[in-house]
């Protein structure tokens, strides 16, 4: 079965918009699963304060996140094709960058950017799958984290916990949601595998 899974996933392309806590952990999980092509997009640099939850290392502080993450992924999966784009996403470049992706993972920090990406994709590429993350702050409360589907849009998270001074983003909850996003990506991409097995 694992061979069949790898065979399907190696030809797939997943785009990840933002590689902070959600995006970096999701990218690593997808790369370990054998997704053949991953496009990571972010313009930020690694900061010491990122290391409590994002997939970077102390000696990478100051490096561009996309290039640092590409190196980290290549360490455990050198065969994967990682396209690292040091770009700030906007309404104009989103379509061009993600048009060949099977799925777009929305992993921004900021709610305005989340909305902008979802609206842009819904308008320009309504057939495209989006797996978004919303509501990751704080700790505990495992059982209120969920995935909601609306057509081709999936939203993972608790839908209520906004990051603030009193409710910071911490590794476990962010990584749980990041991995729920990755898990949802696999469910979408492997849908036909299950159908074929049943026949």
């Amino acid at each position, binding site marked *: 079965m694992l061979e069949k899974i790898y065979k399907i996933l190696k030809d797939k392309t997943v785009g990840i918009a933002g590689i902070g806590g959600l*995006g970096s952990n999701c990218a690593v999980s997808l790369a370990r699963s054998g997704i053949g092509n991953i496009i990571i997009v972010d313009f930020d640099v690694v900061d010491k304060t990122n290391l409590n939850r994002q997939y970077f290392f102390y000696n990478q502080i100051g490096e561009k996140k996309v290039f640092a993450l590409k190196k980290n992924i290549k360490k455990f999966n050198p065969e994967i094709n990682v396209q690292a784009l040091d770009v700030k996403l906007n309404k104009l470049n989103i379509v061009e960058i993600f048009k060949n992706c099977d799925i777009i993972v929305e992993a921004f920090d900021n709610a305005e950017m*989340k*909305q902008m990406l979802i609206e842009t994709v819904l*308008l320009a590429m309504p057939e495209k799958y989006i797996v978004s993350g*919303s509501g*990751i702050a704080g700790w505990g409360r495992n059982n209120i984290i969920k995935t909601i589907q609306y057509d081709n849009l999936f939203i993972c998270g608790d839908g209520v916990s906004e990051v603030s001074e009193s409710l910071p983003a911490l590794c476990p909850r962010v990584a749980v949601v990041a991995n729920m996003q990755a898990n949802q990506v696999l469910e979408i991409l492997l849908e036909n595998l299950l159908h074929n097995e049943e026949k």
Partner: protein
Amino acid sequence: MKITLNNREESFDNDTITVADLLKEKNFTFKMLVIKINGKLIKKEFYSSTLINENDNVLVLHLISGG
């Protein structure tokens, strides 16, 4: 009228309401929303002028900072 709101059936006294009224009535206070009616995206500038009618399938989702 009856509509489907976020996959659940909801009833309203009026025959039609605007998107802005719906948000007020259902207490959607989050700033960053994505709204679709029958699959069509409704942008913020049209919330006050877009009407929701009987049997419409309305999706209101809010997005929260953090990632």
